[in-house]
């Protein structure tokens, strides 16, 4: 369970990081989304992983740490709002600049000069 969890978080953040470093706005937005999923998973695990525990305090039995759940909920809401904003911004940039490069310059120009 622990290793599966760790590998999932790691793969998500690696993919997110790779896509965030791309030159066009769409992969960047997708990358940021993946990164925020990875962060949410990570936040979940920060109180330590408990299996078969109750969600909240259940007498003197085993229970999961409730604080990370509250934090992850906040982080999901904020991340969702941010993603929506980033998508709209990327569309505005595409419309106003005429291309979807993060620096606002045309990709084709550069390739032509390289040839």
């Amino acid at each position, binding site marked *: 369970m622990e290793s599966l969890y760790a590998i999932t978080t790691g793969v998500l953040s690696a993919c997110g990081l790779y896509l*965030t470093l791309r030159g066009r*706005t769409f992969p*960047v937005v997708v990358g*940021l989304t993946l*990164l*925020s999923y*990875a*962060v949410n998973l*990570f*936040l979940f*695990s*920060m*109180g*330590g992983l408990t299996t078969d525990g109750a969600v909240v305090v259940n007498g003197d039995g085993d229970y999961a740490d409730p*604080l*990370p759940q509250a*934090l992850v909920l*906040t*982080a999901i809401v*904020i991340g969702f*709002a*941010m993603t929506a*904003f*980033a998508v709209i*911004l*990327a569309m*505005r*940039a595409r419309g*106003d*600049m005429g291309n979807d490069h*993060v*620096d*606002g310059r045309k990709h084709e120009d550069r390739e032509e000069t390289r040839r």
Partner: protein
Amino acid sequence: MIQHLIVLPVVLPLVMGVVLLRSRFGSTRFKRIASVAATLALAAISLALLLRAADGEIAYYALGGWQPPFGIVLVLDRLSALMVMLTSVLAIGCVIFACGGDDEKGSNFHGLFQLQLMGINGAFLTGDLFNLFVFFEVLLLASYALLLHGGGKSRIQSAVHYVVLNLAGSALFLIAVGVLYGATGTLNMADMAARLGELPAERNGLVTAGALLLLVVFGLKAAILPLYFWLPRAYAAAPAPVAALFAIMTKVGVYAILRVYSLVFGEQAGELAALEQPWVWWMALATLVAATIGVLAARDLRLLVAYLVLVSAGTLLAGVGMNTPEATASLLYYLVHTTLVTGGLFLLAEMIAQQRGKAGTRIVKGRPLTQGGALAGLFFLGAAAMAGLPPLSGAIGKALLLHAADAGQRPWLWPILLISGLCAIIALSRAGSTLFWRSHEGERGGEPLPRQQWIGVSLLLATSPLLVALAGPISDYTQATAAQLADPGALVSALLSDNGGAP
């Protein structure tokens, strides 16, 4: 009522922001009056908080009545009171200036402005690490929208960089908070400070990783060397009142570094104490050098002022890196000065651009200005204060910082800080003489500027002589603040004993 005063700097802008967003199709006059009145009320509240904190009392406000360390608290001490006061003074200048016409270039300026103030005040007041993240997000969301106010290619382009970088920064912030919570089991900063002292040694590595990740996040906000490249373009592209308010945003980063590392990683943390210090010191000096080169290279007045913001960020962080109470006291004095004066210079650059028409703020020959005399006078005042020429406040702030450096730090700080001052004088005098003296022959152009813009700019730039006149009381206050910061035990015991000033 009096015990609820601490939460008002967050609640008042929130309520006003919602009201102003709701009445977005209402009359401009109503929005302007409401926004200015709310900002003035905020200043009155901040003044009351400042007077309350001045006698050294550390008060806290437990939201929902949940006592620390379990509930979320807002903490009022000398440092947070000073920062909230500074924010509201800067905001008055910006909002009055915006009433001169900038607010109608897009929609919802005043509502977003109030929400931004809410985020900034909340970040200054909160005593909880996760809550700090939430308030950072509030101020960032408002700033994304404000940066785009009015539209235009350069704004959208710089906003893409700004938003993407800050989203990545938020992800790092969450990871850092998660690591620190996993290692210490708490998010309350005072409680975390108390627990770090008795932390088992095998968790030291985890806490170090979390703490340095936090430094990256705060460094991104404060614009320290490898993380500052978003700043000049974003600040140069932002509308003037927004750019002026952004002058406090880098200071939010400086404040967060000062607060987290003096409180959580103070002397009681044992091996982990002051773990950020070598990083901050050297990177601050490198920031100063890079920003000075940028100041000399800037060919646009707004870009020049943006690089001056970077110079001041480097100067402040060098003070943080010294990590002595004297250095903290002098950096706080310098922080007040530099925030207000750079804010004023951003506003002034916009006024100059309006009068110059097509030439804008580019430092090239343009047509003569209609109100050139008054603008030049204000520019001279602002430039002299910013470059650190006596008798204005910049000189006092820099002299205090230079004096606070110890023998090992002087060979580094003195030449770099003094040469950066010299380069600022060169760049500002070149800009001023080109803008005001080397103009084309011909008709003076440009409409007379609205009265509100003159009031806003004069208000911010007039604080510089005022800071000199009141240098005695203000530096007494900053010294007391530094002494309070150097003794995190007082804050920890004020929060974690049960007899605090909770409602």
